Structures are given as structure tokens and as C-alpha cells.
């Protein structure tokens, strides 16, 4: 029987790509197929579950075997591994952040992003099946010559946060200590996410519009220099109410979402924004700049500000949503309605079916 393995650059728990790959592997194994995950960088938690991406681990395989490559960043060894793979290759393109965002903070990371784009071009003729995480990403693939692209979002569990029991102590802490409105941002603190614009908008809404908001920035830093920049900015603006929570587990996140007045994203660039889906799963109102894939993910949900909006318009939106109960309710209902549409999707099932079509 044909084996279907997966290759990731990095595997860590909670990461959307990793979680989706784990769900695919579970589905494939349930169908009594041979299926392994390989990664160049493995979180210690996954050391026994995900194998190292080297020739020794991947070992012997037949020309009929399939390797799903999750493309999200470049890795110097990727092309070597894929070149040595005699079987077929499936390209799952999660898109790659434009390198310019990272260059000022981490030139090496920027170079890996640039390399990732090169890999995608080089692998075009070897892919027997191409999958993109969104229509937006599919357009990027078409631009370098791919065609016949399946669109499957990397959502392994739509109910992850809805099923999680919010940490009681976190809920109490939020209730007692956070000022209204509590604005929630969930995601890594990376330059393209424009967390700096959220801080500016908070500053404007507090200084000129009379709000006393709390801004919860829930996500790991990843880039030390950028995280320091954000903290310096908060300090130099003498801005109270900004909290850097770092990485949070599902239970704490559930508490944050349930207490949040609304979720916000000012991101310049997204290829698939999981926190938006999580907010919708809990009926949380959303304010977002309508950039890249955001309109595709939100559909008709949320208050979508124009892609070229600045911090001032965002601050006006903060004040309006915080002070308008009817609008907030309407935004919450729009989140719930959009989630009902997303519930009809079965991304893992669709992916396994797509693999079946080339097996």
C-alpha cells in the first residue's frame, strides 16, 4: 500500500501547520495507511512523535509513495531531501511572509523566507498535487506557473477553543483587573502583524477619544528585537493597560476570548488567520484591516476597515465598537453566522480525499 508521509520545516504544538499535519496523519493512519511526519526543527514535546527530516529517517521508499511538503518558509536542506525522494510530491502551500518585513530584525530569517519562495518555484514540476491554504495563496502559486490548485484551509479543529474550559483563575483576574474595553490580539508578535499599529491606535483612543482600554497581546515574540521595539514603544508612550502575555494554552486563550470586548488585527499580511476563525467560533466581535486573505477568511463577518487604514481610523473603530452595544451585538452575530458557514467545511477530510485522488 502506498505510504503518505509529510515534511515540515518546523513542528511545534499549537502551530496551525503542525496541528493540521498531525490531523492528516491521524486520518491516514485510521485508514490503515503508513504515514509519518518529518521535520527539520522539532519541538522537544514532539521528539518521539515527529521524526527528523534526514535521509536516514526517511529511508527506503517506493516511487509510488507520496511526500506532502508543507511550504511555509525556506530551509537549506529541503531541496536536498526532496531531490533524494524518489516518490511523488504533494505541495501544500501555506504561503511565505514577504522577506522585507523581517530584514531589519533578522536578516537570516529574511533570507530563509526568500529561499522558501525559490523552493516553491523549483518544485513546481515535481508536484503531482498542489494545495493552497487560501485563494489568496493560490494566486501566488499561479503567478509562478502552478495550475489545478486545491484550496484547503489548514484548520484541524474548529472547536479547539469552544471545547476548552476557560481557566477559572484567569477569568477572575481579567474580570477584576482589566479595564473596559478589553481589546484582544492573538498571534505571534511579528513585524507583518503590525502590532505597533495596535499600540498606536490604543494610544490615540486613550489620549484623544476618552477610552481607558486594555490591550492583551497574546502570543509568543519569536523576534527578540521586534518584541523589544514594541515594549520600548509602550514605555516611551507611557501607555498603561498593554499586556504582553506570551504563549498561552487553549484554556487561557478561551478565557481571554470569552472576556474580550473584541478581537483585533491590523496585520499587513496574512495567508490564513486562525485567530479570526477562533474568535468566530466563540461569537467574539472582530475589527480587522481588510488586507490579503482577511476578507476571504471573514466573509461578511467583522468590522473590516480598508486595507490602507492607519492607527487613527482603527482608534475611531475601537471607540465606536466599545461604546455601541447594538453594533457590538451585530458584529458578534456576524461572527457566529460566518462560523456556521465554516462548520460545513471538512478540511482534513478534503485533504485526505485529494491525496486519495493521486494514490
Amino acid at each position, binding site marked *: 500500500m502506498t505510504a503518505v508521509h509529510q515534511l515540515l520545516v518546523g513542528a511545534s504544538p499549537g502551530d496551525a501547520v503542525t496541528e493540521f499535519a498531525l490531523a492528516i496523519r491521524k486520518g491516514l493512519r485510521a485508514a490503515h495507511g503508513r504515514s509519518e511526519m518529518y521535520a527539520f526543527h522539532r519541538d522537544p514535546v514532539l521528539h518521539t512523535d515527529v521524526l527528523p527530516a534526514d535521509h536516514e529517517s526517511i529511508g527506503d521508499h517506493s*516511487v*509510488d509513495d507520496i511526500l506532502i511538503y508543507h511550504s511555509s518558509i525556506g530551509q537549506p536542506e529541503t531541496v536536498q531531501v526532496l531531490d533524494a525522494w*524518489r516518490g*511523488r510530491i504533494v505541495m501544500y502551500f501555506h504561503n511565505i511572509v514577504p*522577506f*522585507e518585513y523581517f*530584514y*531589519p*530584525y533578522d536578516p537570516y530569517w*529574511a533570507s530563509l523566507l*526568500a529561499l522558501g*519562495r*525559490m523552493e516553491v*518555484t*523549483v518544485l513546481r*514540476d515535481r508536484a*503531482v498535487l498542489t494545495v493552497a491554504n487560501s485563494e489568496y495563496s493560490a494566486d501566488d502559486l499561479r503567478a509562478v506557473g502552478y495550475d489545478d490548485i486545491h484550496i484547503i484551509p489548514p484548520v484541524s479543529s474548529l472547536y479547539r477553543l469552544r471545547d476548552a474550559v476557560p481557566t477559572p483563575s484567569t477569568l477572575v483576574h481579567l474580570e477584576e483587573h482589566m479595564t473596559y474595553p478589553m481589546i484582544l490580539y492573538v498571534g505571534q508578535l511579528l513585524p507583518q502583524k503590525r502590532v*505597533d499599529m495596535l499600540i*498606536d491606535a490604543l*494610544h*490615540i483612543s486613550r489620549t*484623544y477619544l476618552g477610552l481607558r482600554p486594555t490591550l492583551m497581546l497574546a502570543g509568543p515574540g519569536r523576534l527578540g528585537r*521586534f518584541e523589544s*521595539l514594541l515594549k*520600548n*514603544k509602550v514605555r*516611551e*508612550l507611557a501607555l498603561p493597560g498593554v499586556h504582553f502575555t506570551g504563549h498561552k494554552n487553549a484554556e487561557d486563550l478561551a478565557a481571554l476570548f470569552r472576556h474580550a470586548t473584541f478581537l483585533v488585527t491590523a496585520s499587513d499580511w496574512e495567508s490564513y488567520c486562525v485567530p479570526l476563525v477562533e474568535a468566530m467560533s466563540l461569537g467574539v466581535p472582530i475589527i480587522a*484591516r*481588510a488586507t490579503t486573505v482577511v*476578507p476571504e477568511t*471573514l466573509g*461578511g*463577518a*467583522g*468590522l*473590516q*476597515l*480598508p*486595507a490602507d*487604514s*492607519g*492607527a*487613527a*481610523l482603527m482608534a*475611531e*473603530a475601537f471607540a*465606536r465598537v466599545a461604546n455601541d452595544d447594538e*453594533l457590538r451585538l*451585530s*458584529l458578534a*452575530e*456576524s461572527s457566529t453566522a460566518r462560523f456556521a458557514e465554516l462548520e460545513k467545511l471538512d478540511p482534513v477530510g478534503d485533504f485526505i480525499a485529494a491525496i486519495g485522488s*493521486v494514490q
Partner: protein
Amino acid sequence: MTEASEGGDGRIVTELKRLLAEHQASGLYPSGMEGELVAHVNRLALGPSRDLTDSIGRFESSVRDVATVDFSLERIAPGSTIPGGAAMHRAVGRLVARYIEGVMIQLIEQRQLLVAALEPVSDVLRNVVEQVGSQRQSDFESLTAELTSRIDDLTLSVDQLRRATPGMPVELGPDGEKFVERFRGKARDIREHYRSVAVQLVSDGPVLDIGFGRGEFLDLLASMGVDAFGVEPDEQLVERARARGLHVECGGGLEWLHACEDDSLGAVTLFQVIEHLPAGDSVELIRTAARKIRHGGKLMIETVNPLSLYAFAHAFYTDPTHTRLVHPEFLEFMVEASGFAQSHIEWRSPPPPKDVLEAVPGRDAVAKAINENVSRINRLLFAPQDYLLVAVR
């Protein structure tokens, strides 16, 4: 929230924009506020380090301290622990007051000179730091531009490499058709050339013809009522064949072969195709065909004959997309190893008689010896240009 969103142009967004404009016009927001905030981030990202800015701040604070701390006689303590000491201090103070005042006036003058000298230093330091910051910004922008340009170059190189890699298609554009006509021959002639081969497949449908080119062989099979379909990577050729009513698809032969059910094909044919493929693909193709062809079905592979030096001089190098010659013994070995029950070679396309060395007339020993050598040379130089491997599963 359809009304509010609508691509960011809904009613509420319009209201927010109007409110923002009003706030800006009323002076609620300082002019240039957003620009200042963006510049703030850029300064933090690209400007001097926080340590350096802090050091300048401390320096300026120290200068301010020097400027503000005043001299005063009241700060000279008059008291004493010695009995009668305070009276003595006062008396001595009165005696030396004139001198002390003179010294203090000079100290104050010196302090003023020192502050006046240090204040420009602070300005110079700030200017230097700002210049360093803008230089870093400029360096970053030029480096980003350079990196972008290098990536464009690399993309171009990859494209060139792809084109130069053996086995990759060579784009002849509109001249491709003329090329095929000139070096492969007219379609009518090709059909005649392959008629004897097609006859061998009349009861072997369905036939998969990989790399059907102009579709001459598929035309032949259709005329004989043989169920056949073809696969070809060139979209234009596919469209033309489809317009003639042939059952064809665009794509790679190996992929299509993989997609076929096991034991579902009566025959697989490749005419002048395998010399275009990487060696690994040829091997995989034969192994896969062995699974897809039913028992008794045929695999036919025709290619340029590497045993003919004449073929090197003519057929092989006239087509720049040819990758490698495949030895007939290797092909025979591969089909046998892949499970085909029997195979044989048919030699095809002999060089024109005018190019072949002629035997000398006569039957004597000398003529016989010469003709024996002529025959050997002909076998080496003028062997048939192509061979057809027929393997039966």
C-alpha cells in the same frame, strides 16, 4: 456584518472616516499625529540603540544640573562643636568675606562658561545619532533593494537552469511546427512509417500513446478501430489532436500511467519519446507500465539506435531536446526485470542506400575480404537509425 464590512466600504466605515476627518479638522488630533507615530516605530526599529539615546539624555541632564546648582554663602555651615567656635567662625567669616565673594564670582563665571561650552556638544551628539539613524535607514533600503534584485536574478537563473537541464522542454515557439515537419517528416509519411507497427495492436486496445506529438499513430489506430488515447505535454498539439476528434489529454506520461488502473491497458506505446526523458523516469515508466498493462498486452518503445554512428550524425543531434540514447540491451533487461514475459527488437529506419558503403564487384578472395570489411563498417556506421522494442506481458 454585511453592511459594516463590504470590503471595508460599508456604512459604519464611512461614518468612522467622517468622524476621523471631523476630529482632524477640529484640532482634536495634533497635525501629523499618525506620521509621528509611524516615525516613532521607525526610529525604534532603525535608529540608534536605546543605550546611546539614554546616555545622551543622562549627559544633558548633568549639564542642566551644573547650570542650575547655585553658589550661596548660606550653604556654608556657621555652627561649631567647640565652645565659642561659632563666634570665632562669624568673626573669621567677616574678615575673609570679601575674598570668598571674589572666588565665588569667578566660580559662577566658570560654571556659565562650562555650560555654554557643553550645550553645543549635546546638539552635536544628537545630530550625529540622527545621521547614523538615517544612514542605517538608507543602508536598509539599499540592502532590501539589492536583495530583491538578487532574488529576481536567481529566479531568472533557475528558469535558465530549468531550460538548460537535459530533459527539459526546449521552447521553439512558433518555429516548433516547422522544426517537426523538417526533421521528423510530413505527417502522411509518418503514418505510413508506423502502419506496420499499428497493425500489431489491432486487438490490443485500449492503447495509451505517450508523447503522441502530432498524433499520427493515434490517427492510424483510430482508422483501424482500435480504442486508444494519447498524452502529450504540449498544449497546442493536444488542442489540434482534440479538434480532429482524437481522445487526448495534456500532461506527463508517467503521471497518466500512474493514474490508470492496474491491468487496464492493452498496450502502451512511446515513439521517439524515451530519448527525451531522464534515466530515472524511463526506468519508472517501464516498471509502472508492467503493472498497468494486462496479461498478454504490449509495451512498444521506439527510440534512436545508439549502435548506429549514422544516427549520431543525423537523427540524434538534430533535435536539441534529446537527452540521452538508450541502449537496446538495457531496455531489454529492464522489461525483463519488470516482469514482461518476452521481448524482441525490430530495427527500423535504415540509412538511405546512397549513404551506405557499396560492395565491390567480384567473387575472388580480395573482393570477398574487402566486402567482408565493408559489411563490418556498414554495420558499425550505417546500422538502422531506430529500433523498436516490443515487450509482451
